[in-house]
């Protein structure tokens, strides 16, 4: 699904965000990318949704090399991705339904398709009953669930989440984790960048740890820190 070969990213001003990263993520995996602030987690995700970066090396997603992708093809790449952010990224003057439908509308979906696809996506995150609410009327956890529903509504094979629980309390975070796990079970590859020790330790999933732009650890059933946490 995802393969990075000797990838380095340098931001303007010569700051190295990633240096010589090579890794492979298979279809259907659930992977945490962990590390302190500035370790390159967000940059790693940006690579995968093709933000404009100065990249060397090879970034393969679903068999396509993103570093040589024409800018005109970027929108079409992103339609096959779900992206979730720490700040939810919802439009405050649109209802929950409209926010989720937005991802379909902007790629030219018809009204029929929207009515068919939005309710199942809201069902996955358990918010069908709030579909007429505005984001301001929802709790943080609910807003993040709406964002996840929006990311899922196109049935993307890959879901990218950048600090999805960064603004949430532990209990709510766990709820978000359960939803992501559920999405993963349905067949979507999930990649979560986080420094939320709690959810990583709860999940027992693959953990890739970054430090100053390098992969320092890659464990199949890892924890947030090196030493396995004893329950």
């Amino acid at each position, binding site marked *: 699904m995802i393969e990075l070969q000797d990838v380095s990213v340098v931001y303007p001003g010569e700051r190295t965000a990633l240096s010589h990263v090579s890794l492979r993520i298979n279809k259907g995996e659930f992977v945490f990318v962990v590390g302190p602030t500035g370790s390159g987690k967000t940059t790693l995700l940006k690579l995968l*949704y093709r*933000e*404009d970066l100065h990249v060397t090396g090879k970034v393969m997603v679903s068999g396509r090399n993103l570093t040589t992708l024409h800018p005109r093809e970027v*929108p*079409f*790449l*992103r*339609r096959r*991705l779900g*992206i979730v952010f720490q700040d939810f*990224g919802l*439009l405050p*003057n649109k209802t929950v339904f409209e926010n989720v439908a*937005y*991802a379909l509308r*902007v*790629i*030219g979906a018809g009204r029929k398709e929207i009515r068919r696809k939005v309710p199942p996506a809201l069902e996955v995150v358990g918010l069908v009953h709030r579909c007429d609410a505005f984001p301001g009327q929802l709790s943080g956890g609910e807003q993040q669930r709406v964002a996840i529903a*929006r990311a899922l509504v*196109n049935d993307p094979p890959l879901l990218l989440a950048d600090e999805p629980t960064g603004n949430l309390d532990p209990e709510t975070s766990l709820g978000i984790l359960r939803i992501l796990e559920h999405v993963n079970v349905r067949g979507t590859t999930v990649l979560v960048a986080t420094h939320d020790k709690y959810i990583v330790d709860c999940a027992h999933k693959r953990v890739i740890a970054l430090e100053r732009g390098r992969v320092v650890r890659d464990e199949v059933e890892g924890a947030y820190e090196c030493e396995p946490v004893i329950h």
Partner: protein
Amino acid sequence: MGEAVRDIRRNGLMSVAALTTSAISLTVLGGALFTLYRLHQFADAQPRRFEISVFLRPEIPRADVKEVRRRIQALPFVERVTLFTKEQAYAELQQADRESSTAIVAALGGANPLPDRLDVRLTDASATDAIAGVLQDRTRFPQVDRVRTARDAVQVFLGIQRLVRNVGGGLAAMLFIGTAFVIQNTIRLTVLARRREIRIMQLVGATPGFIRMPLVLEGMFYGVVGALVAGAVVLFVVAQVSAYGRRIVSPLAHSMPPAAGPWTVLAVLVAIGAILGCLGSVLSIRRFLKTV
């Protein structure tokens, strides 16, 4: 399209600000353009009012006079030639006698020594000297006795005409550029207010064209509606001013060629507004679409 309409409604205050700004700047531009255009028309019309007077030798029979008139009419730059007969001149003299209680006609003792006169109006006043030269040429027009032109006055007015054309053109260009900047800046603010929305659209895979379309329509809307308001204001002010002007300086007003119709003024302003609005949003968005 629906997207654009909804955006304008939701962004109430911002839209009002954008509309006001574009309306005001287009009013200034429209008013200035109209004034400059009228000034140019006026300056253009003045030199042409000076006709060349061609006095024919008194003994020339009327048939020959008509022949000369026909030949002058065939010359280049000649707009029209009017015959002012010796009888008309005589009648005018009698009239003058009555008005200023002189007795010139009586002194003439019934004879009419006045010549026939041809008044030549040119299409281009700068050709006055050349045409006058031709008319004075005895070999070509032996019937002509004397040619009179308002040479100095024509030169002065030609100078004014040039000045108005150059300075006015420069002013119009500067104002146009200024208006373009103001409108572009305003629209950039409305685009800036949508930054978050644009970002989300990009992330869920909207194509640049799809993102641009409603914003461009919105920019055009501000330009066109602003232009309609500006057009109404300009036309109203023009109507008021010319009504006032007709009372105060009627002789000048009479010599003005008819103004452009209200629809022309509106159409020109709307076209300018639409172009500036459209360009403004395309330029503003371009910067955005590049940053991601």
